[in-house]
């Protein structure tokens, strides 16, 4: 069954890979052939895998996790091959890093001269953000009729957040609604960017980058060369993509008021507003107008908090307070059920509420207090799950830091933020991996550590970690 679903994933990848071929046709580039070759190979391999007969048609929670983890590795692998074949990114590790960074919507790049890349490669890079943002499996579920309730295990393994529910009774319908919202917002952003005067290719790729909260730009200067109006449109949309998609579902339906009652969304917007205020005040001296300071503060906060990673200014040069706030935002991340990464606002909320409960318990040892969210008590299981998640996250983070520090001769800031920026799927960090630098200079082993971190961060740790458990392989 695992192989059948993987075959399906490969077939979809083949279709995805045809898109850059079309782009190369439009711009008359010959790099499109490498995409075509890989697309055909994927289609063939996918068809073969789907032929495998399996007795067990059930997907349980464990299969769900394994399928999703393997699917993402397979996607990134096949997605990296065209870069190598077309000699655009000759080193395989670099190509794989770039593709993983794309699918996981990290946006950490090893490219030094983006301007010299072919259009179809740039398109593919941005398109991986768009697909990775909402999830490939969710996409497949939305399109293909899969029987049984088991595909919820797949969706759950791929979607971020402490508790993944459905919007409507049928999994397929839920997935479809998510993608419709996603597509509608993306199209809207493309139109607005075009209206603001951005060229079509830039508008489409930047919209893909914002929709998946990825952060690959198509120019070496990033998004700094766009007009302030375009930058504001981008900032607005990354904030919108970082909101829990339940919000839009409620807005669509009969209970519009419920949308604004989601406490996660409220806190998300509050945190953005507060951070913008602090940073604007902190960097007001660096810019001539307070308006410019506000503009750059808002753009950077939106970009970092939603884990997109576009930069309109080099925040590496900002004061320590501003940098600290940004690093903090990296860890909080966007809302659950959005396309953003990080710990997720709802987890942070549950953690803070649990802390308050614990302190209260120390003061009044006999007190009974429930952790409440949106007027309902959070089940103890879920609260415990969040704490375990945080602990796992901290361990992975620490181990990655030590490994990268061991492989590189560099300062602490760079090591710390490179891991933080990849595990939270942001992209640029601070120091040697800051917004105006890139990841090309890192050594091979560090790149592989960061690749693992990006995948683990996007899939919320467990699918990747389960691949490392020996029991899983022994049973098969």
């Amino acid at each position, binding site marked *: 069954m695992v192989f059948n679903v993987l075959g399906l994933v490969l077939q979809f990848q083949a279709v995805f890979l045809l898109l850059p071929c079309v782009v190369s046709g439009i711009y008359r580039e010959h790099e499109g052939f490498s995409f075509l070759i890989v697309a055909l190979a994927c289609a063939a391999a996918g068809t073969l895998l789907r032929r495998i007969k399996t007795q067990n048609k059930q997907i349980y929670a464990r299969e769900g996790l394994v399928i999703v983890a393997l699917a993402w590795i397979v996607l990134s692998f096949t997605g990296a091959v065209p870069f190598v074949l077309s000699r655009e990114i000759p080193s395989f590790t670099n190509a794989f890093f770039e593709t993983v960074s794309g699918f996981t919507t990290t946006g950490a790049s090893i490219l030094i001269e983006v301007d010299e890349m072919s259009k179809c490669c740039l398109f593919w890079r941005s398109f991986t953000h768009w697909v990775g943002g909402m999830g490939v499996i969710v996409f497949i579920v939305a399109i293909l009729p899969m029987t*049984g*309730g*088991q595909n*919820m295990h797949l969706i759950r393994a791929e979607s971020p957040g402490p508790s993944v*529910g*459905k919007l*409507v*009774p049928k999994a397929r*319908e839920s997935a479809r609604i998510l993608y419709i919202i996603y597509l509608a917002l993306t199209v809207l952003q493309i139109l607005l960017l075009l209206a603001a005067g951005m060229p079509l290719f830039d508008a489409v790729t930047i919209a893909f980058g914002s929709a998946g909260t990825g952060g690959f730009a198509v120019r070496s200067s990033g998004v700094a060369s766009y007009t302030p109006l375009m930058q504001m449109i981008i900032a607005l949309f990354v904030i919108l993509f970082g909101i829990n998609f339940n919000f839009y579902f409620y807005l669509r339906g009969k*209970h519009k008021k419920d949308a604004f009652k989601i406490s996660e969304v409220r806190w998300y917007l509050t945190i953005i507003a507060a951070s913008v205020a602090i940073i604007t005040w902190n960097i007001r001296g660096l810019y001539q107008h307070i308006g410019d300071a506000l503009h750059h503060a808002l753009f950077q906060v939106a970009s970092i908090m939603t884990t997109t990673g576009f930069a309109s200014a080099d925040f590496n040069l900002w004061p320590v307070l501003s940098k600290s706030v940004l690093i903090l935002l990296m860890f909080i991340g966007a809302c659950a059920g959005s396309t953003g990464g990080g710990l997720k606002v709802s987890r942070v909320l549950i953690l803070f509420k649990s802390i308050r409960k614990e302190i209260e318990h120390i003061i009044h040892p006999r007190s009974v207090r429930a952790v409440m969210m949106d007027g309902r008590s959070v089940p103890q299981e879920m609260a415990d799950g969040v704490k375990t998640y945080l602990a796992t996250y901290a361990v992975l983070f620490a181990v990655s830091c030590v490994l990268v520090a061991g492989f590189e001769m560099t300062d602490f800031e760079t090591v710390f933020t490179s891991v933080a920026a990849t595990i939270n799927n942001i992209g640029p960090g601070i120091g040697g991996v800051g917004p105006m630098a890139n990841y090309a200079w890192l050594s091979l082993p560090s790149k592989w550590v960061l690749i693992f971190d990006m995948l683990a961060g996007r899939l919320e740790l467990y699918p990747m970690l389960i691949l490392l458990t020996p029991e899983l392989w022994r049973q098969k």
Partner: protein
Amino acid sequence: MNILVVGCGKVGQTIVQQLSKEKHDISVIDVDAGVVSDMTNAYDVMGVVGNGESYEVLRAADIESADLMIAVTDSDEKNLLSCLLAKQVAGCNTIARVRNPIYGGEIRLIKEALGLSMTVNPEYAAAREIGRLLKVPSAIKVETFCRGRIELLKANVMEGSILDGCALVDVDAKIGIDVLICVVERGDEVVIPKGDFVLQKGDRISAVMATEKVPAFFTSIGESSRPVRNVMLIGGGKIAYYLADSLHKSGMTIKIIEKDPARCTELAEKLPGCIVIEGDAADQEVLLEEGIAEMDAVVTLTGIDEENIFLSLYAKSISKGKIITKITRLSFDNIVDGLDLGSVVYPKKITAESIVRFVRAMQNSYGSNVETLYNLIENKVEALEFVVREMADYVDVPLAELERKDNVLVAAIWRNGENIQPNGRTRIQVGDSVIVVTTQKGIDNLNELFHKKA
């Protein structure tokens, strides 16, 4: 259709299982978060944790767009309240499980006063099914159509039976009664047979015939159809009460064995004509002393499935009478079928069947309506009764000239108080009740089964 199921107990789960197979949009509500997450993992349904009587919770499950709400929590009052609420705020159809015998006599009144579309009482329905089985003790299973005037019986072909080695075309002539054998189970195989099919010993047949012909049918195939006089009910729950009440009225002698003294007293007060024995049925001595070996029928109705299975196996070993086993919870159907337990009755399935029938009839308010629906062989063969209400292209065309889907058999037609045994020349008319046996799933209209040849 959008269906809301409140309460995910045994009955709730069976209903969801059936309805989700028929591709409805289902939301479930239960107070127990664990049960809800089990349901959402097993079926493609949306789960809401909370109390089904609360408007807030119903709204979270999107009651406004629901077409049907089914309340099957363990409390009758909660079920009625949530149905009332759903009816008021959403105007949807409502089905409530109401099973306390104190409401039994007033059920019509309650249904009308609260605007319910249907009430279900699994225990009462199970008691009725057991009652039917006791009236035809040679059958393994009895289903009725056309308000009880046509019956579908399941029976084994015994060694040396007149049916052993008999081709289906010759059956009528051989036993001199109009019957139609519509399904044959042979080992794990299930066939809807054609005329040249030859029966063997060990086959399990399902046959359709007019109700008054049933005793003659069993006599002619060599099974005694001696009516049941003495019945022992083991376990004195709700089913036992309903069953004893109706059997006693039809003149049988009922002996109920119940462990709990308080319940014994209660039963004795409510059922003055029955013998109530206080004793533990797990004790062989008690059973032998009360004459289990001489009973015409033994029905095991305790609250524990495993105990019922053991008691039935024991009863089978020492008695020649009819054995009926009630199974409430176990889901190992194929294992249970392999045991020699006589007839097995599943209350939750009977209820689910009646709800599925209601849903299909709701879906299709024109043409021909599903009147009755039975799952003859678990998830393989269904028997459905349709009433032809209006003109359609299959009306007044000889059956042989209709284009039919595979594995569809017209088993009987009831017209003007008469059972017509259909053949190729029979024509369906408006007003007929048509009984169809099929392996096709989710049929809710005769149109789906056959058409006039183009």
